[in-house]
């Protein structure tokens, strides 16, 4: 067996299951389940009403089938919508968190004990349907930054949540967003007050553990006037033969002169070589540059999930606002990804940049789908899009479906896309310089993705480079 094959056999690293006593609500979805979730979170009545409204809308909607992905029907009544590790009722300090949970996150490389944590990163750890710990809340509070599980925010910062939740992704936005709005359990809430530059990188780590459940988190980030925040998101799940559903919603709001940088490393379990199991990652992420001169930047590295269906977008409402999207999506084995972005230009002199790199290997199918819409009032809007695809092997596919809609004659819009094979001459060159073929491939692929990786915060960039190596090893030889 060559070393390349050995690498292919390398199992998904985060595929273990934590044996922990969990409280799981029986499978099925109806208004009582939603009331139960809302009750468990101790939510006020308006939140429950909102959830029920979303649920009633969801019942009228049908699952979208336009993405370029194939999967069997999902039985929404076979999913349990709430799973939480059993623990003592009140958590004042980390000592009270079940050590098994602490160990789980340590094994994932996400230490939640503050003394061990990476410097400069505050972590909210979400395990199935609940947040188990959020570090550095006290230190952040000194700056007025609120960083907590969204269920806590609904109780303690109801005014902010009520004002902003659903303003970017309405509860009836699409099928999965409506489902999420009805049953969302945990997720992070961030509020950065006026003029504050958040001193730490904020990070949430999502872990699915229980079987037959789905994870439906909701994240809401508000950057008030002149503030700045960088937020990172990571995720993983155990290896199982079943497909688990992950339908998240992320809403970002940037007011005047505010900046939000949102980075994702998505590493849900992708299924095995034959495409059994894996997470269905159907998420809705959208940011609104509500204020003048605001900026929202999305960076994503998508290596996991059996199916990815996500289009992080920006609504550029404020004049001079900026939207950015940097993405690397890797599909190997039988993974399918239909991902891209939406840039909606409303304000004057709004600018957007899209850089998307798709890598297909094995039998993977990778689709870029994006929308650039420049509305009538967007005088002087500017967009630049670049989508490159790399194909490794002859059984994979790469597809590009950009939608461009320009209604203003002063706007300038450029789109470029290319698809090519990994260069044999490049591999040959590197090999004759003494590099092994997998090192050569890794070097070429990393070069291909460099434009995106340089947008990631330092710790994540290292992680992303490593992940990319694991996902692609053995693809060429």
């Amino acid at each position, binding site marked *: 067996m060559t070393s390349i094959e050995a690498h292919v056999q390398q199992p998904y690293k985060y595929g273990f299951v934590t044996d922990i006593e969990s409280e799981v609500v029986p499978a099925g979805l109806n208004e009582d389940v939603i009331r139960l979730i809302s009750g468990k979170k101790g939510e006020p009545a308006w939140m429950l009403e909102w959830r029920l409204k979303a649920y009633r809308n969801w019942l009228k909607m049908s699952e979208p089938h*336009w993405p370029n992905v194939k999967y069997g029907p999902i039985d929404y009544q076979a999913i349990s919508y709430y799973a939480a590790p059993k623990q003592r009722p009140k958590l004042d300090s980390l000592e009270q968190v079940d050590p098994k949970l602490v160990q789980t996150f340590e094994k994932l490389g996400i230490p939640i004990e503050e003394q061990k944590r990476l410097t400069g990163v505050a972590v909210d750890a979400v395990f199935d349907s609940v947040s188990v710990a959020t570090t550095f809340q006290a230190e952040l509070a000194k700056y007025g930054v609120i960083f907590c599980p969204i269920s806590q925010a609904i109780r303690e910062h109801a005014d902010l949540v009520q004002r902003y939740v659903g303003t970017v992704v309405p509860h009836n936005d699409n099928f999965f967003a409506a489902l999420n709005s009805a049953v969302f359990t945990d997720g992070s809430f961030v509020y950065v007050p006026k003029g504050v530059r958040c001193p730490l990188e904020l990070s949430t780590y999502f872990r699915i553990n229980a079987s037959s459940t789905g994870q439906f988190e909701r994240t809401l980030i508000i950057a008030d006037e002149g503030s700045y925040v960088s937020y990172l998101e990571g995720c993983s799940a155990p290896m199982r033969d079943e497909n688990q559903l992950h339908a998240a919603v992320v809403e970002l709001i940037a007011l005047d002169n505010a900046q939000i940088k949102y980075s994702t490393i998505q590493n849900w379990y992708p299924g095995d070589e034959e495409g059994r199991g894996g997470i269905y990652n159907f998420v809705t992420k959208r940011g609104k540059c509500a204020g003048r001169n605001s900026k929202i930047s999305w960076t994503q590295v998508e290596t996991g999930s059996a199916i990815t269906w996500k289009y992080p977008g920006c609504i550029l409402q404020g004049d001079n606002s900026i939207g950015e999207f940097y993405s690397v999506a890797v599909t190997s084995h039988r993974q399918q990804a239909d991902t891209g972005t939406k840039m909606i230009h409303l304000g004057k002199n709004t600018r957007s940049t899209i850089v998307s790199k798709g890598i297909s290997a094995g039998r993977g199918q990778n689709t870029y789908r994006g929308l650039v819409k*420049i509305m*009538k009032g967007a005088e002087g809007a500017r967009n630049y899009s670049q989508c490159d*695809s790399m*194909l*490794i*092997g*002859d*059984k*994979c*596919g*790469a*597809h*590009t*479906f*950009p*939608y*461009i*809609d*320009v*209604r*203003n*004659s*002063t*706007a*300038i*819009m*450029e*789109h*470029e*896309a*290319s*698809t*090519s*094979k990994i260069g044999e001459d490049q591999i040959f060159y590197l090999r004759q310089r003494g590099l092994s073929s997998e090192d050569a491939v890794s070097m070429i692929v990393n070069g291909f993705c460099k434009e995106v990786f340089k947008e990631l915060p330092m710790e994540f960039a290292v992680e992303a480079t490593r992940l990319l190596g694991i996902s692609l090893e053995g693809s060429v030889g």
Partner: protein
Amino acid sequence: MAHVEQLVGSYRAWASNGASRAPAWLHDLREVGIARFHDLGFPNMKQEAWRFTSVAPIAEGSFELAKPPARILRLEDIRPFLLFEAGYRLVFVDGFFQPLLSTPFFDDIQSLAHVVTHRQDLVRQHLGKYAATQDRPFSALNTAFVSDGAFIHVPAKATVAEPIQLLFLASGDKQVVTHPRNLVVVEREARASIVETYASLAASGYWTNAVTEIVVGDGARVDYHRVQRESDRAYHVAATQSHQGRDSTLNLHFVAFGAALARHDIGAVLSGPGGTLILNGLYLLAGAQHADHHTTIDHAADHCESHEYFNGVLDGKSRGVFTGRIIVRPGAQKTDSKQTNNNLLLSTDAHADSQPQLEIYADDVKCTHGSTVGPLDPRALFYLRSRGIGEHEARRLLTYGFAAEILGRMDVASLRLQLDAIVRGRLAEQ
């Protein structure tokens, strides 16, 4: 929906009367067409392929099947639409072949209605074999009403020296529909150049629903030009489908100036290795015109090359839609495919939609696409003005240059001059 029933009814009346002498195979082809149209009905904007174009004016209008023109046209009437008077030419008025205005060549350059009985085997072998009707209601409707159109057959290794002119004129009768159906078969290693023109003698709101099938044999070369200069109030729906053999060359040129609402589905299949395709197009719109081009280049074989260029110039409240899909099938290795769509917006109310799409299932390929939408480059304008050229003239010059890039790729000099004059005329109006 009433209109779908009305069209089906008019088919029934036509099939039992005027078209009842058709051979059985043609009758079957028509029946399949009408059944499919009946199932599909008119497309709506919820369908992905139609999301930017509403066919409501057609679907809700009431169009009668065109009757033979009452007035006999003379050569003087059609001269403005001809490139030259020599050479082979087929002229149709309201969809009916005009033998006195045409210069056919035996059964090789002839009206389709004639060859359906005289060259039955050849027509049967190709007619309806390339233009898809499964999800194309308009092509299905055209197939139901197949009766006349141009037929061109170039035998193996033959060369037709002069371009063959095909002219489809609308005489000006309102609310009529014509379904021209053209079949071009260029056999192995043969050469031909063809110019297909749609024009009108009056500014009326008729509807043209045309389908053209082009078969290019192994090693053959075809230059195909299609000029759409219908009346500004007309509706023009068309499908052009080509099928290329090994080592063949096909240059497709499309120019759209006319029609209130135009939709053109262009499909090109490269079915043999080593094929070369150029797809070159221009849409020049003003007023409230709407033109929608859907192109699909299907690389079904290895070692093929395709280059696509589509430029749009949009003025007034016009809207240009472009969807260009490149499909590279599994095994179509060494494919080299490039596509560009550039749109120039000349007015604040003009609107461009562009969807370049790549669908790739082979790994050893080079595929790129690019798309731009924007106004005239202010620096280029500044440069011209600094050289003493007035702003209005400078704008016209730059716009002309943008359109001339496409016209410059056409080999037929007389056509280039004709189109050039039209473009200049259109820009002078602005």
